[in-house]
């Protein structure tokens, strides 16, 4: 018990020592969106733990959907680690917490006079509830919902050599973000094939401070995909994802014209059940269609590695 209190106090001390200064610049930041579908919600009293590593690279500017030669960023990317835990509170509801850490978030420049910029640090904290909306095991049909909040507990004031890094390199978004979504799964052929449809929306709260006034555009996402069980341990998933980002706003409600757009991505994924409750997944994501608003640096691809431990039993004390 004393140890629990100690860890809790230590957590709170670190949490509040972050001293979130909401001042920064333009563009985008925060935790990357989850690209890997998770069909199985944690059962009551079960804990699921996951560790995600993601690498992402961007190296080409686009003017809407056409490549444009801009002599500025050579390449930009990140290496991101995310620890997630999901606990089944009751039969139809589980709670999920994810915390991310950027091992590196970098930009290199074409101009040899500009040194590479590299940031690292804690990203946002995501707390979400997952719940069953409809479940019909006999028809292998499940509809579930998710609602949550992303808290800007991470680093949003990272300074290197007395220069505050631009917002796109800050590990945290600096903004409270609220998200919700729905996912429909249907299994066929004795669970050999699984078809899923998911959609979600994420709203950001306006960041307002002495030097900075900014609101990230709302993000809408639709994913349609299918998983195929290759054998008892191996699954292959393929999904198409559409992400629509609305334009951001800066001070005096000025629209940031070069923000947001539409991206369609193909995400192949392979999952391997290593032991009874351990699962390894590799996912690759690359845009197959994009239309940005104005000129923006576009993502080339990202690669994810996910390790999941399911069904960690938690014994609750009963009185």
């Amino acid at each position: 018990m004393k140890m629990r209190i100690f860890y809790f106090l230590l957590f709170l001390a670190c949490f509040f020592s972050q001293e979130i200064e909401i001042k920064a610049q333009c563009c985008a930041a925060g935790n990357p969106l989850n690209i890997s579908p998770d069909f199985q919600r944690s059962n009551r009293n079960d804990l699921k733990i996951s560790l995600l590593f993601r690498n992402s690279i961007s190296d080409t500017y686009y003017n809407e959907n056409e490549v444009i030669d801009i002599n500025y960023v050579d390449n930009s990317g990140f290496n991101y680690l995310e620890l997630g835990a999901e606990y089944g509170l009751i039969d139809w509801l589980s709670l999920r917490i994810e915390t991310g850490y950027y091992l590196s978030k970098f930009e290199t420049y074409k101009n040899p006079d500009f040194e590479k910029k590299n940031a690292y640090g804690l990203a946002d904290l995501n707390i979400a509830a997952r719940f069953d909306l409809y479940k019909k095991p006999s028809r292998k049909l499940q509809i579930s919902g998710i609602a949550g909040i992303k808290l800007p507990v991470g680093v949003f004031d990272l300074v290197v050599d007395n220069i505050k890094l631009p917002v796109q390199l800050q590990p945290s978004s600096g903004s409270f973000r609220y998200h919700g979504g729905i996912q429909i799964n249907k299994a066929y052929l004795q669970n050999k094939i699984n078809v899923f449809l998911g959609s979600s929306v994420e709203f950001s709260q306006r960041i307002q401070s002495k030097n900075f006034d900014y609101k990230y555009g709302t993000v809408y996402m639709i994913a349609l995909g299918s998983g195929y069980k290759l054998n008892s341990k191996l699954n292959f998933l393929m999904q198409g994802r559409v992400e629509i980002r609305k334009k951001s706003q800066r001070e005096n409600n000025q629209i940031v014209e070069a923000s947001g757009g539409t991206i369609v991505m193909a995400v192949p994924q392979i999952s391997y059940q290593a032991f009874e409750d351990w699962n390894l997944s590799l996912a690759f994501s690359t845009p197959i269609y994009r239309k940005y608003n104005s000129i923006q640096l576009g993502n080339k691809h990202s690669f994810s590695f996910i390790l999941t431990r399911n069904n960690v039993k938690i014994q609750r004390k009963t009185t």
Partner: protein
Amino acid sequence: MKQILFLSLVVFMLFSCKKSEVPKKISNEIEIISLDASFRTIKAWDTTSITVIAKGENLSYFWEANHGDIKGNGSQIKYAAGNCCVGLNTITCRVFNETGFVEDTIQIRVKHYLDN
């Protein structure tokens, strides 16, 4: 297991702490004489040099921009911003030493890359 989770979170947070060294109090022993830029209006992804001239002992310089990137450090930096930062942007310079800090701002207008 829970202890490992908590410890991981704490370690993440501790390693993420990296703050500015600028003192919190205003100094009466530092004076900013000028803060100027080679260009007050630039096209997206072009650069402008910003120079601060200040009076005081053992001075250090902290820079931040509300939109855009700052390159270099010290009393002269380069500022650039992409199309996402089109508009009037504010660059803040804090000059500091052990006695405290003083600050000034300069505004740079960034135009769309494809505008003439």
